[in-house]
């Protein structure tokens, strides 16, 4: 219950004062975590080698980007997509990855490479898994000011464990992990260079419906006490 409380309520004991550096660091953390390579799937064990193609959609929470007294009228995408692939071996091993080759999306250009490696084990209707992930990339676009090209670079490494319970086509699961994040933001307007290195505990719950070919997943994430977000995922299995 305490874990639930920690993960799913924003703290009422937030900072009472904040410097520009703290505000900028928090924003970098939030954007870094929103683009992280989270599992977005139950720790399913397959009885034969299976390939999955997955589309993740991350609805972006409302983000107040004010720093100091600078009101930024930038409008980032409301949903960030991520196309990924996974191969599941019948011994429980899972290898996945994603790549975006500098695609333009609603005024932003994102380039990243991500990999994940996991191992799952089932115990009847229950299953569990451990997974490590890595993502490295950058986003170029109007992050702090319209019509300017700022550059946000990020490198995230994470490890998480998950536990699932399956009822026919439905699976409910929970997960907890820790993430190390390194971000940099080059602000075009003044040449300011912001560097950030932080880590965070994250956790969440997910619900998945799967048929032989398709799987639909809804995941709720919470990172420390300042970010909660959803990931919707659609997978096709070969």
């Amino acid at each position, binding site marked *: 219950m305490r874990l*639930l409380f920690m993960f*799913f309520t*924003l*703290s009422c004991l*937030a*900072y*009472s*004062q*904040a*410097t*520009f*550096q*703290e*505000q900028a660091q*928090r*924003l970098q953390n*939030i954007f870094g975590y929103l683009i992280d390579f989270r599992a977005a799937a139950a720790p399913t064990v397959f009885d034969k080698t299976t390939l999955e193609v997955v589309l993740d959609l991350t*609805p*972006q*929470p*409302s*983000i*107040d*980007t*004010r*720093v*100091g*007294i*600078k009101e930024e009228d930038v409008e980032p995408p409301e949903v960030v997509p991520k196309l990924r692939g996974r191969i599941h071996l019948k011994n429980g091993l899972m290898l996945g990855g994603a790549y975006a080759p500098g695609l333009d999306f609603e005024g932003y250009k994102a380039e990243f490479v991500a990999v994940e490696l996991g191992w799952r084990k089932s115990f009847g209707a229950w299953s569990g898994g451990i997974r490590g992930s890595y993502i490295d990339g950058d986003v170029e676009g109007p992050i*702090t000011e319209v019509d300017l090209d700022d550059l946000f670079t990020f490198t995230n490494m994470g490890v998480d464990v998950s536990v699932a*319970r399956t*009822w*026919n086509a*439905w699976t*409910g699961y929970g997960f907890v992990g820790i993430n190390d994040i390194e971000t940099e933001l080059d602000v075009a307007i*003044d*040449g*300011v*260079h*912001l*560097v950030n290195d932080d880590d965070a505990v994250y956790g969440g*719950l997910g*619900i998945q419906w799967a048929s032989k070919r398709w799987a639909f997943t*809804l995941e*709720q994430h919470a990172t420390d*006490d*300042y*970010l*909660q*977000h*959803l990931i919707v995922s659609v997978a096709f299995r070969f």
Partner: protein
Amino acid sequence: MYRTYVACMCLVFSVISCSDADTLADEPPPEVVISGTPTYSNGVGELLALKCGYCHVFPAGDLSPDNVPDMDLNLYETRRVGEVNVAGADSLGRWIHEGILDHAVDKFKLIASPRRMPLDYGTQLTNREKDALEAWSDLATPRGDEVPPAAGNLQAGAEIYPACGSCHGDEGGGFSDFAPKIRRSHVTISKIKSMWLYRAGQFTPLTDSQAADLRSYIVTLDDLED
């Protein structure tokens, strides 16, 4: 039976699912509270380091804008570093006097694009901090541990003054916004030494003795602002 579990799971999920981010955007800036007379030693140094020194640092740091002048507000004294004259907090008085905490100041022609300080995206000053900095400026930006200036040699000061007078005029009345009339109460040893390096662009700092000589001469000029 499984439908009950799934229904419960969906219910719990619908209750907890949300999307939210706490960005600290609404948090006010921290405040340095200064009790008594504001001096560099009494609060102003701490304030400048917290709210100005992350950009105005020498060598320029990651947070420093590209066009930041050679200035280090984490230290009091203007100094010479290698081949560069680096302004310290002792050079700030005239900027504050001209209102840089409220609007851009282009009087001194030192920067291509003058802007109000702190910049919009920087850590803002509170009203009490702004009042303290203005009071500090009015007091001639004291460090707080100055010893009374030595008497100085009037004749020696007169020999140095032409380097200052080429802009401030033979009697200290100034020529333009670039070099305004000298304020009598601001003719201090630290200001003379700061202006010598930073504004006059000299390569060799004045000694305390030379600054005292110069001071003893400047305060005798006829066109100073009282």
